């Protein structure tokens, strides 16, 4: 514990601005992964334990696409598209068979997928880690905003995350498909009886969730390392975010991701050896006081 350092940091505007920006960066990237997870849960009541695998595969697809085409934009699009397709296949071939069964059965199937694809990645890309490297367009000096440092690449990431948050939020609230999705979340059999093709709808939700995870993997690839099994820590982090925010709530995921980001930004100053524990403590405290998360509604 280093409370003096924390006090000094709060006394200095540069430190507050910089660590806040870092927290936002960490948080927005977390949100990107967690958004798909919370969307899938909100509509289908499925806890997608394989979400980290989507993220991992997205990163690897982007890595290989970049190596083949030399275009980072193409790499990002390819990763999102590939994971949308993967999401649909995953839902149709596996998850669709266990709708309505025990949460443990879903866990079991997802775990099997995690195990299988960790090994598939190892077979295809090798056991060693890979680094994609920064695309040349972003190899520029960082910007200085109000005494805080903001690298351009991260500014773009935050922009994309913000756009996704808005599109998802407004899309669910205002569009026809969004309304159907929300209705299906409330009462799937009724929606089905009204002539909506729920099969298609559910597949669509998994496609969007997969695409978001794939996108996150591709966007994070230039600065993170790719390795088999990398999805697990991301999965845990996104779970914390969705659980704190309230499972199924996009707004909740956004707020929770930022809370976690800030907690880490300042935790590393004040509690450098217990940053991780801090997150779990926060999660436990929030759930004990608000058993359905910050923005969550009652779930069965």
């Amino acid at each position, binding site marked *: 514990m280093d409370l003096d350092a924390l006090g000094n940091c709060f006394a200095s505007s540069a430190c507050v601005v910089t660590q806040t920006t870092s927290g936002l960066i960490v948080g927005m990237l977390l949100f990107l992964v967690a958004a798909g997870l919370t969307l899938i849960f909100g509509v289908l009541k499925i*806890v997608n334990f394989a979400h980290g695998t989507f993220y991992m595969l997205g990163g690897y697809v982007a890595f290989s696409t970049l190596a083949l085409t030399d275009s980072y934009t193409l790499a990002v699009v390819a990763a999102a598209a590939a994971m949308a397709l993967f999401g649909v296949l995953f839902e149709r071939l*596996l998850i669709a*068979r*266990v709708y309505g*069964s*025990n*949460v*443990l*059965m879903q*866990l*079991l*199937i997802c*775990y*099997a*997928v*995690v*195990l*299988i694809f*960790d*090994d*598939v990645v*190892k*077979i295809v890309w090798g056991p060693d880690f890979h680094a994609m490297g920064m695309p040349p367009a972003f190899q520029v000096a960082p910007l200085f905003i109000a005494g805080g440092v903001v690298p351009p690449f991260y500014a773009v990431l935050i922009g994309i995350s913000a756009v996704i948050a808005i599109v998802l939020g407004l899309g669910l609230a205002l569009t026809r498909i969004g309304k159907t999705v929300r209705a299906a979340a409330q009462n799937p059999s009724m929606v089905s009886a009204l002539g909506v093709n729920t099969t298609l709808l559910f597949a669509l939700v998994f496609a969007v969730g997969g695409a978001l995870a794939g996108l996150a993997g591709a966007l994070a690839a230039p600065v993170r390392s790719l390795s088999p099994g990398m999805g697990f820590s991301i999965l*845990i982090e996104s*779970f*914390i975010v969705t*659980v704190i925010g309230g*499972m199924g709530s996009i707004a909740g995921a956004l707020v929770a991701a930022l809370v976690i980001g800030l907690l880490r930004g300042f935790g590393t100053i004040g509690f450098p*050896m*217990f940053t*991780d*524990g801090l997150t*779990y*403590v926060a*999660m*436990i405290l929030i*759930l*004990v006081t608000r*058993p*359905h*998360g910050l923005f969550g509604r*009652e*779930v*069965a």
Partner: protein
Amino acid sequence: MRRHPALRDALIAAIALVVLLLIPAFHRSPAFEDYVIRVSAMALFATSLNLLVGGAGMVSFGHGMFYGLGAYAFALLMQMTDLSLPVAALAAIAITAVGALLVGAVCIRLGTIYFAFVTLAMQMLFFSIIISWQSLTGGDQGLRGGIPRRELFGFELGSQLHLYQFCAVVMVLGLLAMRHIAASPFGATLRMIRDNETRAGFLGVVLWRARLTAFVLAGAFAGLGGVLAALFVSGAYPELADWPNSGQAIFAVMLGGIDTFLGPLVGTMILLALNDIVTRVTEYHGLVLGLVILAFALGLRRGLLDFLRLRRKGAKA
């Protein structure tokens, strides 16, 4: 027999125990003995989890924390004090029960999914404490230097045969005790809560007290499993308390069957045997294990024993 189910259970347990103890007299196989030792630790752990999952409908993702707590408490007591083995083991189980009481007090009021995740978060917190509290636990490198194997009624637990016999006895007695709990009126109350908590509430059951009791009992038995695990590895390692270990127990329960008492034992036997075979053949055991799990989950749709039981019922009807 039908009127004395407890007697029947005891009889089955006695027969199983005699068979297990006789095997080494006919054929010594160190690999088999290791297997039984590991099964004993894991089966107690998985069955205790199923007291919660199958017995009370409480899906805990963090049960491994009590397995780890039992292992650490026992190993530390053996290293730091001169307590005899049974006393240290009982003390370790008591410590685990207190731990489960504290964790349970926080968690048991939550709904299914949130209960699952908060128990998981508790486990990760516990895990990060083990890693951080290096002076006591040895951090990520675990508690090294071995557990002193004090002699116990002529048993010398450094010897594999004696450890085998000891674990077999503890496993059978532990399972019998849990069977007794599941079959007791308290077990019936838990099942009633699982099936319809509103009705159970109307009938005057204090929900939180019943759930908390179940949570503490399950924690204590997981701690007993942890004691055996600590004896097997002659130490305690953070991996025992880590998430994948809880995952293993969940899969053992799911593979064997949640509605049959011996399901988790059978699941453990399958899982460990699969692990032992597959890791011999290929380093891609994740791939193989994943495919096997999928075959089970999509093929049987339920655990092995549950499946066989339903089939038999179907055949009779």
